C-alpha cells in the first residue's frame, strides 16, 4: 500500500495519532505531527512511497509538533523532535515541510556509517549510477530532478550512498528541494513535474519540493553500480564545458564532498580510490539544463563503449 492509497484525511489523522511509517529505501521512517498542513503536504509529495503497516522498528522517528504551553501566542511555531531532543530551533509551521526534509537529511547523515555518504546527487540508468557530487547551492538538486524527469531513475538529490568497495550505490530518493529561480526553470524544462507547495521565506529562500516520479520508486531498494562521476558546477549563462580530471584530483574532491569520509577513515580511503578508478571522472560546467543533459548523454555513450 502506498501513501496515495490512503485518503488524505485518514493519513493526517494517523500522523497526528501514532504516526505514519514510510519506507524510504534504504530506511524506514516514522513521522508524527499535529500540524495538519504538513500531513497533507507529505501525503502529496510522498504519494508513491510505500506505507509500512504495524511497523515495529523505524530507523528514524521524527516528530513535528506545535509549540505548546505558556507561550500560546507563539503557537504558530513548531518543533522538530528526534530521540526526545530538539536539535533545531522552533520554526514557523509554514516551514514544516522543508524543515522535515532538512532534518531527515541531518539525521541520516549522522547514523549511516555503514555506508560512505557523499554530498552528491545520484541517478541511474541501465544499472549504472551517475554520481554528481557538488557543494550545497551548486544546482545538483535541480539537475538531478531534471534527469529524473527524463529516462533516469532518481537515486537521490542529496546523498550518494556508496555501500561497498565494488561501487554499489543505494537509493535514498526523497523529494528534491528546488530553490528560487530554479523552480520556474524546472517547470519550463519538464512541465509534467508535480511539485509540493511553494514555500517562501525559508532560510534558503523560496522552496518547492518535486514529487519523485513513480518510475524512480518502482525498483525500491535496488541499487546500482557506479558508472560515471561528474562534478557539476552551475553558473548562470555559462557555456557548457566538460573536462576530464585526474584520479587524484577526483579523489580529493570526493573526500571533500562527503558527509562521513573522516568517520570511515581507512575504509573511506579505499572506497574513494576504488570509485575514481572505476570510471573516468569529469567536471561539468553548465548554465542550461539541456546542455548539461546533452553533455551527460555524450559521456554516457563513451562510458558504455569504454
Amino acid at each position: 500500500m502506498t501513501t496515495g492509497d490512503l485518503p488524505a484525511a485518514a493519513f493526517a489523522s494517523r500522523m497526528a495519532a501514532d504516526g505514519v511509517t514510510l519506507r524510504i529505501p534504504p530506511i524506514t521512517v516514522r513521522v508524527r505531527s499535529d500540524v495538519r498542513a504538513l500531513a497533507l503536504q507529505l501525503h502529496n509529495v510522498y504519494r508513491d512511497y510505500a506505507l509500512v503497516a504495524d511497523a515495529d522498528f523505524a530507523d528514524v522517528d521524527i516528530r513535528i509538533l506545535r509549540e505548546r504551553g505558556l507561550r500560546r501566542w507563539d503557537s504558530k511555531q513548531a518543533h522538530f523532535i528526534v530521540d526526545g531532543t530538539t536539535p533545531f530551533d522552533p520554526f514557523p509551521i509554514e516551514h514544516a515541510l522543508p524543515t522535515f526534509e532538512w532534518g531527515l537529511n541531518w539525521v541520516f547523515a549522522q547514523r549511516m556509517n555503514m555506508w560512505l555518504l557523499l554530498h552528491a546527487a545520484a541517478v541511474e540508468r541501465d544499472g549504472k549510477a551517475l554520481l554528481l557530487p557538488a557543494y550545497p547551492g551548486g544546482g545538483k538538486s535541480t539537475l538531478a530532478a531534471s534527469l529524473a524527469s527524463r529516462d533516469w531513475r532518481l537515486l537521490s538529490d542529496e546523498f550518494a550512498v556508496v555501500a561497498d568497495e565494488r561501487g554499489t550505490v543505494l537509493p535514498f530518493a526523497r523529494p528534491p528541494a528546488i530553490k528560487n529561480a530554479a523552480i520556474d526553470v524546472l517547470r519550463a524544462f519538464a512541465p509534467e513535474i508535480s511539485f509540493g507547495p511553494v514555500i517562501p521565506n525559508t532560510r534558503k529562500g523560496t522552496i518547492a519540493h518535486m514529487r519523485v516520479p513513480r518510475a524512480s520508486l518502482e525498483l525500491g531498494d535496488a541499487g546500482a553500480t557506479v558508472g560515471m562521476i561528474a562534478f557539476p558546477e552551475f553558473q548562470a549563462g555559462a557555456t557548457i564545458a566538460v573536462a576530464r580530471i585526474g584520479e587524484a584530483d577526483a579523489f580529493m574532491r570526493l573526500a571533500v564532498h562527503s558527509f562521513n569520509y573522516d568517520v570511515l577513515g581507512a575504509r573511506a580511503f579505499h572506497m574513494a580510490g576504488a570509485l575514481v578508478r572505476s570510471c573516468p571522472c569529469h567536471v561539468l560546467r553548465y548554465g542550461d539544463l539541456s546542455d548539461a543533459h546533452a553533455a551527460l548523454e555524450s559521456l554516457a555513450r563513451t562510458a558504455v563503449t569504454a
Partner: protein
Amino acid sequence: MNHKSSPAWRIAPGQRLLFQDFEDGVVLFDALVGSTHLLDASAAETLAIIGEARGLDASAIHGKLLERLELSADALPLATVEALLQRFEAMALISVESA
C-alpha cells in the same frame, strides 16, 4: 650527535601511512590523525624513503630522492626537502629520531 643541525627522521611513532598512486598524484591517508593528503611525487617518495630506512638526515634523504626521481640538485634543492620535512613533522607524519 649533531642533533639540532641535522636531525635524523623516522615515521612518527604510532603512525600508519596508506598510499594510493594515481597518474596525477599520490593520495596519502594517515591513520593516526585520520587526515588525507594529496602529494606530488617528491613528497610521496620522501615519505617512502623515511619509511624504508629510519634515521636518515635531510641530506641523506635528499641524496636518495635525487637518485630515485632521476633529478639533479638544481631541480630539487636540499632546502626544498628540508622545508618538506618540516611540514611533514608539523603534520605529525614524521618525527625526529630520539638519540
